[in-house]
């Protein structure tokens, strides 16, 4: 079980969070077309490597966190508040 150090709440169990997918995936511009959106929605690398991902702390502060986790060891390298979100500077 992952133990995620939430910058707002402290170290909490994975079961308090909801996984929200890869954080590198950037939503295409509105006019980018079906192929770009298809890639955005469906295509993922699944690398044996560090992975940047969103976790929403639904049973805590309900804030969105950007977590860098290793897909093999599950080691968590960094956790920060979603950039641009209110208070994100403090959450780093």
């Amino acid at each position, binding site marked *: 079980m992952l133990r995620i150090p939430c910058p707002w709440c402290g170290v909490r169990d994975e079961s308090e969070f909801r996984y929200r997918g890869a*954080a590198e995936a950037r939503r295409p511009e*509105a006019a*980018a077309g079906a192929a770009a959106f298809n890639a955005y929605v469906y295509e993922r690398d699944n690398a044996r490597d560090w992975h940047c991902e969103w976790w929403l702390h639904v049973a805590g502060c*309900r804030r969105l966190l950007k977590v860098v986790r290793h897909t093999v060891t599950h080691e968590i390298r960094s956790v920060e508040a979603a950039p641009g979100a209110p208070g994100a500077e403090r959450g780093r």
Partner: protein
Amino acid sequence: MACPARIARGLLTDPARPLHFRFDGRELQGLAGDTLASALLANGVLQVGRSFKYHRPRGIVTAGPEEPCALVDVIGARGREPNLPATTLPLTAGLVAESQNRWPSLRFDLGALADRVAGFLPAGFYYKTFMSPGWGWERLYEPLIRRAAGLGRLEASVGPHADPAETVHDHADVLIVGAGAAGLAAAHRLGATGLRVLLAEQDLAPGGGTLLDGRWARWRESTGAALQSFPTLRCLMRTTVLGAYGHGVFGALETLSAEESARFGGLRERLHVLRVRRVLLATGALERLIAFPANDVPGVMLAGAALRFLTRYGVAAGRRPALFANNDEAYEALFALAAAGVHCAGVIDPRPESRAAARAKALGIAVHSAAVVGAVGGRHAVRTVTITELDGRPRFVLEADALLVSGGHTPVSGLAAQLGAALAWHEPQATWIPELPAPIGRVAGSAHGVCGLAAAARDGYEAGDALAVDLARPHAATEPPTLPPDPEATAIGALWEVRGRGKAFIDLQNDVTADDVRLAVREGYEHLEHMKRYTTFGMATDQGRIGGLLGCAVLAAARGIPVAETGTLRARPFAQPVPFAALAGAEVRAHYRPKRRLPLHAWHESAGATFVSTGLWLRPLVYSREPGWTPVLEEARAVRERVGITDVSSLGKIDVQGADAARFLDFVYANTFSTLAVGRARYGIMLREDGLLLDDGTTSRLAAGHFILTTTTANSASVLEHLEFHRESSCAALDVVLTDILDQWAQFALAGPRAREVLAPLVALDLSNEAFPFMAVAETMIAGVPGRLFRISFSGELAYEIAVPAGAALTLWSALLESGARFDIRPYGLDALNTLRIEKGHVTTAELNGNTTADDLGLQRLLKQQGDFIGRTLAQRPGLTVSERLQLVGVRPVAPTARLRNGSQLVAAQAPGASLGYLTSATRSLEFQGWVGLALLSGGRQRLGQRLLARSPVHDESVEVQILSAHMLDAENTRVRS
């Protein structure tokens, strides 16, 4: 003659407290402190079961939880519990146990014929044989095989109340797994630092191997006393750590003693969820079996187990035991038996010489060096042991009634492997040795490949000190106390298998032989994990613990590679079988999941409501305890003809505020909200980014930068998450704040032609169509309560939804009932609500099922043409807009008496096997005679007027139906605007 094999005073048994028990109907006597296994051995009971596949007689092989053979059924107040290892089952007065997998009796078992025809039952036999006919597996072969194979039977006697069970969450700086020499030593060092330490031991007393060596009693006692003095150290006895789950999370199962169980209301097991910073694995090592012909005859036992039975329970494994061992440690069992006066038949050791062999000879025990066991005589008990030369030539036949075996020791490394330990092959001990990354913890003692108790204790002291340094709590170095010296030992001589005639088992519980492994290799299953699955090696409840490495070695030999190259089997949680009840803990029956109650739950209850679970919510289904449609239709009729009131407080409600609130809603909804006037509501649909429908609901604008949106009850949590996610990611630049107000506001729908007249006396508001038209919204006082009034309708009638702070729910509800009394107002439940909305063609989560698009449900006109929104691009994919997709339609039976069922498949009469769609919702109707329903039908909008069959093969029903527009009632929406 009671207990002929009890020859000494055991460490744990109390000769003053005899206990009677029954095994296979025989009345026997043991002592308090015995396990069932030690009590059976004490009574001279050697055969305790039949094997899984060949039904061969089996005895007790180990003295611990790793036992592969001595599994029994226990019959007690809770019914019949199967597969309990006799080696860990505490003996209690009146215990009733039975052997497993035999019929009609243990001694005479018809299934043993399987052993005689074993040549026809090799590994993979089932895969190859039971291939045809196609139906044969399910109806013929599997039932037969299940009867012939398998272990115990489960016959639960389940009472009205769940057995007590509990889950404990605990935290510590260091978890020490195993309280043997290494674990105790480490705990001593760590406890002194003030770190919070949890010491978990599966045995009922701490000590591990030191319990078997009298010289260690003083050290054990003084260390135990020191541990008791540490305020931050706790010991959990009878606690097995079941699994390592990463990030310092461990699961452990504590089995309560009979006294504790009585104190905790019959609680038998306690599940511990442990969260720790570091772990120290002092899990010890397990002795391994050697594969040789007939190495499963009752009386063949691991040497260490014989030592345990003698030391702990005073029971001799045999009156004339022989030892077959390749290592010095194993001799200790024989030395202890000899010291207790047992005549030892001799030792068979493949090594040419050893220190232990010299000691044995000095004691007058015959040692057959450079020899192996080539055969065991006897079927229900060991009678003879045939000694052969290393090259297979026979040397000598020994008379013996027990054969103690030891092929060396393998560190218990399951937890380490789950934690990502590196396993290194250690040739001198012929085993794998685990090493943990420092940020996770350390391994110490025999689990670390260390031989001897003193060496293990020293390793434990070192590991404890190292962990204290890791956790920045170093302890002033102290000299370790003087430890009893380890006997000097000669190195192990690796020996895995003696080839010969007869079955040589590597997995006793699943009846896997060395020949099976070679067959697997011949048939191409060379990889360890493939061989495992082909032969079922290591897949039984004991997970092949005493034969795991043995199987790898036999595989390596068959492939002609070193053992180190086969790798190891992946060890997964759990470390031992765990009762489901222990995992469920208290989360059973009423506590299975939380319940959410409406603010007016008590009122609904007192009004005689039958409740239905929707998600976690308990909602009134109908205000009647009578089954049937009559009360439902009466409630619906009140709404259609007069006025009714229903509690919709479980709808999701989200408050959206900020300068960019409208822009945000334009992005997350498929329709436009920036054009919505203040004081108005609009129906909206949300898509997922893949273009499918996520949810629907009304959104109201209270001010330029203030909206209230509603979601369906079922999707309230997922919609909130969806919006929060986008607010902080793709919409992070917008000025918008989301607040979940679901629990803060109660909301009721007041519906029916008289709704306006009921409401009017309670508000100081002009409710006329001109002043407060359909889709109007106002913040106003209602019955003296500050609330919100929405003119929206789900029922298809003139209707208002009224929201007030949850605390004022009863005030408003009572006022509405009172005001409506003159129109005979009726509360209505979810069933009537469903009838009303189906007739009207309004969708709910039955249709918003995650597979439907806006176009499918006839909502395509809501998709805005201008501007970006979630799902916009992918909703236009050709596959999501083709006309053959399942589209929403209305359905009515042609014969008014015929009923409709949810889930019925729609088919054409000429092709009844090809589904064209299915019914999503069905109800008895008020407006139409008989039943009406909604369906998702391929090309549905082109089929209006067609006749199809609604088939339910489950009910063996087929009903002719007419396809209609989903808007079956008041398609022009005159009623809602009246």
